[in-house]
């Protein structure tokens, strides 16, 4: 069904169609519309879920963990401070191998109070064992939320998935949305090792170094296996619903000399910048990463690379720039832009490319000139 919706509403629609058993959530700007919509679906009978209105994000994730151990399909949504507050439990969810699906609406962390888009909140979760995907349009937010349940709950994965939406830049903008009936695309949930009083086990018991080490390795194995599951899910999604996704979204990369690498809505701005640059005779392309964990193989051989980070690791550099640099053994021009919701237009991105200085870092709006 075709309609117009915000990014937040698209997520809520997808959750309604997948039908989690338990949703535990706490409000936070700019995510609140998601949990408000879900509460409304539950109250009006459009969604048969247990909605647990917890008193904090720490408890939201803890309640999802408890429900998931009892064989529930679970969902929550958060942002920024809320994600940071639940950090102890995000580690727990992945370590316990629970396929919880969460939407994180990317927002900067205080102080000062700032509610606008930034990716540092999600980057601080990158080592927890969660799969991470970043989306750029309302339709992609919807489609990826559907796919996330199937990927997380796949027996080769059994890890939680975090879907990242840029605060306001995607959560609150309206775009066309085509909703679907997921049907057989989302199979019923069958988790192994659910709690059963007739077959009692300890969950998260004290664990010695040898077993703990093995469990960590098993998380990494599943993270690697997730690559195949994501690929199959993308292909199946395309067969069912006709929309095609990959680990990256590439725009005019084939013959490009210089490639702009980014995450989220900046990747859509970058596509417009590419067209402007090509009119000027600069053979540029855009490579927007969708999946950040597991981190995909990127085809950047022989290209000049400009990476835009909407995040920063103090004392080190842009997290995406570092990831691209170290995974591909390629030097990059690292642009830090858009922190705290700073406006970054396609003209700005074109300017980054024109003035690229490979091997350097540039803070947009702070350093006067590239």
């Amino acid at each position: 069904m075709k309609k117009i919706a915000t990014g937040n509403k698209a997520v809520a629609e997808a959750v309604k169609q997948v039908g989690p058993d338990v949703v535990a959530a706490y409000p936070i700007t700019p995510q609140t519309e998601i949990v408000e919509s879900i509460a409304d679906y539950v109250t009006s009978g459009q969604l048969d879920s247990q909605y647990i209105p917890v008193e904090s994000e720490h408890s939201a994730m803890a309640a999802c963990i408890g429900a998931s151990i009892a064989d529930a399909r679970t969902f929550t949504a958060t942002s920024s401070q809320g994600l940071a507050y639940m950090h102890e439990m995000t580690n727990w969810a992945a370590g316990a191998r629970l396929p919880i699906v969460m939407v994180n609406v990317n927002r900067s962390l205080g102080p000062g109070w700032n509610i606008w888009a930034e990716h540092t909140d999600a980057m601080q979760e990158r080592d927890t064992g969660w799969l991470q995907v970043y989306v750029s349009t309302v339709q992609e937010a919807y489609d990826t939320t559907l796919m996330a349940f199937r990927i997380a709950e796949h027996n080769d994965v059994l890890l939680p998935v975090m879907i990242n939406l840029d605060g306001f830049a995607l959560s609150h903008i309206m775009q066309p949305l085509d909703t679907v009936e997921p049907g057989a695309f989302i199979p019923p949930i069958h988790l192994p090792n659910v709690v059963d009083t007739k077959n009692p086990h300890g969950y998260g018991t004290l664990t010695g170094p040898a077993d703990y080490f093995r469990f960590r390795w098993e998380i990494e194995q599943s993270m690697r296996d997730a690559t195949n599951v994501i690929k199959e899910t993308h292909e199946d999604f395309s067969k069912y619903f006709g929309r095609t996704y990959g680990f990256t979204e590439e725009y005019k990369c084939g013959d490009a000399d210089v490639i702009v690498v980014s995450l989220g809505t900046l990747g859509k701005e970058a596509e417009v910048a590419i067209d402007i640059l090509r009119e000027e005779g600069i053979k540029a392309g855009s490579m927007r990463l969708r999946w950040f964990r597991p981190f995909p193989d990127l085809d950047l051989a022989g290209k000049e690379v400009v990476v835009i980070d909407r995040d920063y690791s103090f004392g080190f550099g842009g997290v995406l720039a570092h990831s691209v640099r170290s995974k591909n053994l390629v030097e990059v021009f690292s642009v830090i832009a858009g922190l705290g919701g700073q406006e970054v237009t396609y003209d700005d991105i074109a300017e980054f490319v024109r003035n690229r200085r490979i091997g350097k870092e540039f803070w947009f709006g702070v350093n006067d000139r590239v």
Partner: protein
Amino acid sequence: MNTIAEIPNEEYILKCTSACAGCGDMLILRYVLKAAGPDTVIVMPACCTAAFQGIYPKTAFSVPVVNSAFGAAAACASGLSSMFRAAERKTKVIVYAGDGGTLDIGLQAMSGAFERGTDFLYICYDNEAYGNTGMQRSGATPLGAKTTTTPAGKPEVKKDIDAIIAAHEPSFQATACSSYPQDLFRKVQKALTFRGPTFIHVLSPCPPGWRYPTEKTVEIGRLAVKSGMWVLYEREHGNLTISAPSKAAIKKPVPLDEYLAPQGRFKGIDAKTVEILKQRIAENHRRLVAGEAVP
């Protein structure tokens, strides 16, 4: 009051766990599980019991134990309970948490779970300090007690968690003590007959923490009650009833010194602090006899 003969012979904790000799917590958990029976899931934050449950792949328990982060037990139990009720499973969900995991780091999650009407029993076993980490003060440590972080005796009074719980208006709440297993057994069974959140706060004497010989655990617990320092009661739909052992103790308490003197943690406590303790005990008795759950 149940007789010992009415308490089932089934055991749900294996013998020879790594709990300290004379551990009050072991007695409490033993009778809690006997009262709850096999269709029970225990949710447990970091605490002494979590430390002696066994090391993977072994467990000392014959009911499922879901370990949770320190401050998250009640929220984790909310998720389990919610899913069990949705699936129309009658499995009982019991949080079994220490005083640190209840009065301090777990307070917010517990308050939220009670306010939301979570269908579970929350048991706080209270040894009045962080035992697992080597006896640091907690919100439950009584005035004047020495811990490793209050070497001169705790200058503040014990937090009244029962009053905090009472403010959430649960259908049933009670206090108990490891030295009165029949009373504890009956209160657990009763708590599990209610829908919604219920709470039992159990005093758990601790030989290494309270610094008394291991064979004195039952005796120390009885002295806590007989001196009136610990009052056994239950509160059903707001009506507070003092339990039999405490009724007798309130009428004719043994001197407080008989409870304090055998415990190394109270060694050297000054007369002024003892006087404050006595005044607070008297006020507590007056209030509870009058049926007032909240000071």
